[in-house]
């Protein structure tokens, strides 16, 4: 299904912080693989492992959490909580025989367009190799 089209990446972005950064990337005409799809949620620590696993099951090659980091408007525990979700999901992925590296997280601030593009490029490259 994904042959020759590049690896499909699902990005969970957050409405206030990382989604504006992804918008900004487009605004600045920065390019990243067109197989990157974004779903936005209020806060990165709200991502359920179940959604991530669903994405893998349905055929996504990688999932990327564009986290709020310390800029989170809700609470500073966001970074920790998001990290915990990731590590729990990594466990689930191992059980299912999915390579944990296919789930990544990085803090993307609201103007971090360039870091986001870099993340996407390197992630896509990594996924296409593995």
């Amino acid at each position, binding site marked *: 299904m994904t042959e020759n089209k590049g690896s499909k990446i699902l990005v969970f972005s957050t409405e206030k912080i990382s989604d*504006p950064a992804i918008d900004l990337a487009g605004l600045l005409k920065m390019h990243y693989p067109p197989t990157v799809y974004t779903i936005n*949620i209020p806060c990165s620590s709200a991502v359920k492992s179940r959604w991530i696993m669903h994405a893998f099951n349905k055929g996504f090659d990688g999932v990327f959490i564009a986290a709020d980091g310390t800029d989170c408007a809700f609470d500073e525990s966001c970074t920790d909580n998001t990290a915990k979700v990731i590590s729990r999901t990594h466990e689930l992925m191992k059980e299912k025989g999915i390579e944990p590296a296919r789930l990544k997280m990085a803090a993307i601030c609201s103007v971090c367009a360039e870091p986001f593009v870099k993340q996407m490029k390197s992630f896509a490259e990594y996924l296409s190799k593995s």
Partner: protein
Amino acid sequence: MRNKIGVYICHCGSNIADYVDVEKLKEIVAKEEGVVLAKTTMFACADSTQKEIVQDIQEKNLDAIVIASCSPKLHLFTFRNIAIRAGLNPYNYIQVNIREQCSWAHSDTPKQATEKAISLVLAGIERAKHSKALTTLKISSVNTVAVVGAGVAGMRAAIELADMGTQVFLIEREYFVGGRSSQWNKLFTTDETGQEIVAKLYKKIITYNNITLFTGAEIVSKSGSVGDFDIKVKINPRYIKPGCKLDWAKFEKAVEVCPVEFDDPFNFGLTKQKAIYKNYPSEFPEIPAIDYDKCNKCGECVKVYEDIDLNQKPETININTGAVLLTTGFDPYEPEKGEFAFDEIDNVITLQKFKRLIELNEKELIYRNRKIRNIAYIYCVGSRQLDGENKYCSRYCCTSAIHTAILVKNKYSDINNFHFNRGIRTYGKQEVLYTESSEIGDIFLQSFEDSPPVVEKQGKDTIVKINDILTCGKELEVVADLVVLVTGMVPRKINTIADVLKVPIGRDKFFNEIHPKLRPVETVIDGVLIAGSCQAPLNITESVKSALSAASKANSLISKGEIELEPTLAKIDETICEWCDKCSEICPYDAIIKTKHGGKIIAVVNETSCKGCGMCLPVCPVNAIQLIGYTDVEIESMIEALI
């Protein structure tokens, strides 16, 4: 499930249409189940298009619309308004971003951009199918604020709230208002005294019908939530008959006969105090008070002052309030025994005590029968500690010490001030004070971070030694008649209110705001606000600013009679939940409550406190929590559509 969905695909001039094949996109989505209408448009945001959409919704009886255009950050509210105008619930409107996140980002690969756009719009349609009509939650609120602490900040906030039409309960733990400010003399920059300011504010407060002042009062419990708190206030008796006028002569007699005597905390032990007291003659409320904890009820005073009534009892009253504003202030740092010879050499005192000393000495500056000429000020005592817990800078002390030093020099003759500091921090306009004190000959000596000045006794003299940075580390010494420890601010030692209200405490042990820039006077507990120096060391102006800020926040929160809440909330399925505490533990807003429901213990979301962040979602081991607008079906069907 919505099945009459209208889809609009925007060309955005050429911005989208140049890279995304909008016609193809339209054809594909038109075939999608549930889509009854699919259109392309040059500018979706244009007035004519907006009208067309309204018409479509009404004519075709659409139950959801999807607009594929630019980022929702730009036009979400524009389009939601279209829905509202057409009588459609705004939450049945879904915006798909095919400009910033598609046509522009992938302008190098138009073919793939089109494919991505198709997936994105399909996902949007899925989301629209599952979208629920939401209404913003409204809870009623009483237009009342309980202000805790009648210092300058609290009084100022009370006046402002009252002016804005809010009912205020001003609750002060002491018997008199004014807090710390009434202990201070002339203030920078206006040269008013602390007591004048307190008097000015008090006199204003008593003119308001909608401010009720309680003194000797403390909040002992709280229930309810924002808009509708129930608080219990315990009021200690004053033992003075209510409504009586102050009779100074009789009061003085009562003081004379009172057998209970102890160090006066107001003057930091420079004078003695009786159980019946006023800290200073013009203190407010005018009538004196008898300290409930100290009085032994011997009745001597009643004999000379008939307005005294020792039969008064403590009482507890209930207050219903929309919000609580804490302005409980600070305590001065109390040096440990031996810290810069404090408590060891008798002419070492704190800055706060020194300020009282100046006020109590009119003509000559005398401490312990000794005329004071050379004064050594040692800065950062209790602040910026290397080993101790207080890592923070207390912000006001440099200015306060310098201001006091200038005052002393002007008030008495023959004073030499020596400032043993760690780098003067007279920020902003306060710099002029530093300049002034230097110019009049105050001497500033700066110690290295790791070698603070040493205070020691040499014969009869008290010597302060320092390796002075400003003189290339040279060892210098001053024979000081008085050593003033410039002590900073620490949180209130007796801080029961923090436990009662469960106010979050920061690393520095002061109350913590949600965010110093976004929400600087709010705490994570909705409806509990903080201001002034209970939050961090602040000077009077800064305290007042934050108090006024908090007043306007509190007022806008509760004054409309109802509080609107975003409908994006967590919902717990009671049939699945088996109380495990994980969600309530992680919730930063204390919005999840343990409840008994139908015979089992479950977690319930308090809708008034929930902010809809979703932090609780992933921690539930049985997946009982759904976030409205981001439910599993919505997200998962979107994922399926995207692939």
